[in-house]
């Protein structure tokens, strides 16, 4: 279209026809753009000017200096250490960590549940398929916020007070203050064990690739599962033992009206996680179903014809093709889940938006606060899409259609 515009433009000037130079599309293009940018800049300048005047009139400070000041308010839970004496910057970071915590766990759980429900909807068992569609239709059509309120109220009223907490296992307490369970006293040994797990994962990945290569060359696939299991058990255990095999466990106990010690899942976190997971899983289920249906049936027939077992048909033929259809909409569901986690503020989970909101109320610096929220979510969104784009490119057909 650009070509065509410019050629028409050249025509009218080269032809030397009379008439305003405004009839030249090139001149018009430049003019339109100047007008647009002018309008955008003018509006922005107007708003900035108003804002600065208003801020001055209300005696509100500007700039991000407040991030260095003491926040003075406490939050109910934090992944990183935080006390009210810490700065606003620190409390926002704690909020961000809480957002990431609930989003990452939610994404993993919603993917698992969504895949199961999506496949169940395609089941040839009528009851299973009906269950799955009732689940999907029910949860998709009710606002997430309403579901969050419901789960939160349910946890708060249906579970007993700490004094009569349910104890499914010795040391595990379920009450309306959340879920408390024994947790190892964190020492270097446990960190090393985690490192061991990560190493085992990397090694297994490498072994798997090597096995694939050897299978390609010789037709025989070396055993991977045995060494992998050994690695996953052996490496963490060995590293844990090297660090002195710490065994101290922090067991929660009831003192007065609440529990002390152990690890804790708060009711707010639980309600948010359950709500986000169930809601997003309904959407993911539809995506998975659509992806599987998008693979032509001939692919299954062809795979069966060359003698693959049913499991292998799914893993080697159907899933790789379905994934290409599934990944792009799945990415936007992950982004939705992350953005929806901001509803945390409504049930009192201290995520980024909630901590930023309290900071705004205390300092009055609304512009900076909202700017921080937006910038952080944009960064997170763009990172997730970048990763998923990379993954999508990675699994896309090579050398085929674009």
């Amino acid at each position: 279209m650009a070509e065509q515009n410019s050629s028409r433009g050249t025509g009218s000037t080269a032809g030397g026809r009379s008439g305003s130079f405004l009839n030249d599309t090139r001149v018009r293009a430049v003019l339109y753009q100047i007008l647009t940018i002018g309008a955008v800049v003018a509006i922005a300048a107007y708003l900035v000017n108003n804002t600065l005047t208003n801020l001055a009139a209300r005696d509100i400070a500007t700039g991000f200096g407040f991030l260095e000041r003491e926040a003075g308010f406490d939050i109910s839970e934090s992944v990183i250490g935080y006390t009210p004496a810490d700065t606003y910057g620190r409390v926002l970071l704690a909020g961000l960590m809480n957002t990431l915590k609930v989003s990452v766990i939610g994404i993993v759980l919603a993917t698992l549940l969504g895949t199961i429900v999506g496949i169940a909807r395609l089941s040839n068992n009528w009851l299973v398929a009906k269950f799955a569609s009732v689940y999907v239709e029910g949860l998709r059509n009710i606002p997430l916020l309403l579901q969050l309120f419901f789960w939160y109220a349910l946890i708060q009223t249906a579970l007993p007070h700490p004094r009569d907490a349910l104890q499914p296992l010795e040391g595990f307490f379920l009450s309306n203050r959340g879920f408390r369970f024994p947790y190892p006293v964190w020492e270097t040994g446990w960190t090393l064990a985690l490192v061991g797990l990560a190493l085992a994962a990397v090694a297994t990945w490498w072994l798997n690739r090597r096995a694939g290569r050897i299978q390609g060359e010789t037709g025989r696939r070396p055993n991977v599962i045995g060494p992998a299991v050994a690695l996953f058990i052996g490496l963490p255990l060995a590293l844990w033992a090297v660090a002195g095999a710490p065994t101290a466990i922090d067991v929660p106990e009831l003192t007065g009206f609440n529990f002390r010690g152990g690890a804790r899942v708060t009711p707010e976190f639980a309600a948010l996680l359950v709500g986000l997971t169930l809601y997003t899983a309904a959407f993911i289920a539809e995506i998975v179903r659509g992806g599987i249906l998008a693979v032509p049936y001939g692919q299954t027939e062809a795979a069966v014809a060359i003698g693959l077992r049913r499991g292998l048909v799914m893993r080697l033929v159907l899933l790789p093709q379905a994934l290409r259809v599934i990944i792009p909409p799945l990415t936007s569901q992950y982004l939705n889940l992350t953005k929806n986690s901001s509803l945390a503020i409504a049930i009192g989970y201290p995520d980024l938006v909630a901590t930023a909101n309290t900071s705004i109320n205390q300092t009055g610096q609304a512009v900076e606060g909202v700017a921080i929220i937006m910038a952080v979510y944009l960064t997170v969104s763009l990172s997730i899409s970048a990763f998923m784009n990379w993954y999508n490119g990675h699994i896309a057909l090579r050398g085929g259609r674009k």
Partner: protein
Amino acid sequence: MRTDERELRNPAYTHTEEPDEPTAGHPPTRTWDLLGWTRKHLFSSIPNTILTLLCLYLLWLAIPPVVDWALLSAVWSSDTADACKVEGAGACWAFVEQKHRFILFGLYPFGEQWRPMVAVVLFIGLIAGSCWPGFWNKGLLAAWAVGLTVCGILMWGGVFGLTYVENSQWGGVPLTLILSVVGIVAAMPLAVLLALGRRSDLPAIKTVCVTFIELIRGVPLISVLFMASIMFPLFMPEGVTVDKLLRAVAGITLFTSAYLAEAIRGGLQSLPQGQYEAADSLGLNYWQKTRLIILPQALRIVIPPLVNQFISTFKDTSLVIIIGLYDLLTTAKTALADPEWRQFYAESYIFAAALYFCFAFFMSRYSQYLERRLNTGTRR
């Protein structure tokens, strides 16, 4: 077509040992055979049988207590909460009986609540009417203009002998409908411009549109609503105040327009290049081409995603609870603030959820119907 594919996936069909249907030259009979159906859909293999039994067991566990709670032991009518608080009482629908006026219409003056009622009926009538493709013409636009005006008169009043009701007193279902309908109607023109701008050849215009769309799509609705509620007053010159409802509508409109713009862009992209070229060769200028050739076709393709966006805007309006507007979810939650009825949160939320569900479920079914209907014309 879907069911056919599902049928083909049936392992009983791929493994040829035991075909369920007669295959020797006879076409499959169309009679509905209960035993055969049960065998095929519930007990076709051992794992399938186990799954069926498991499902039946779950139903056996779940249905009797739910029916007992919701119907058999429920308290249907009572002036006080005491009748619900006796041992063994089920759902307290008396709560809904006592509070439904507040949940449906919020703080609107009690004696005047027939007005929002009529407005809601009008809104639903308009939406239902717009769903019928036979009505898609200029008359529909006129009907909407008249309908919205009448709704405005009903809600605000102040003329024709109706008392004036400030919009801070609006609430419940009418507010939810107003926020979502006005939000999407106002977002539409903006979205068309954004979508066209994003496909423009002019780099400056394209950049402005892309930045706006991606910025809005990258942040949660809450932050846009925050912007509308806390930052917007700062943006305005001194002395100018903008009403809270209007700010919420502005926030929802901006947010929706970015998502709608992407849907419309999909429609623009799916038009064959030949349509653009044909319009150019007729000598139409950009706006003629867009108005007469491109948009009528592109918008038609975009109707199903547009309906889906409407559903999600409808559900998203529940977020205005965070900036303190009395929409359906807020009234359902506020009704629980009464200490006497506080414990009946399930009834309140189920009532609100049922209202949301009816509307959203109908719209999503409609969007699926539309997709099939529109597909038949353009399928290659």
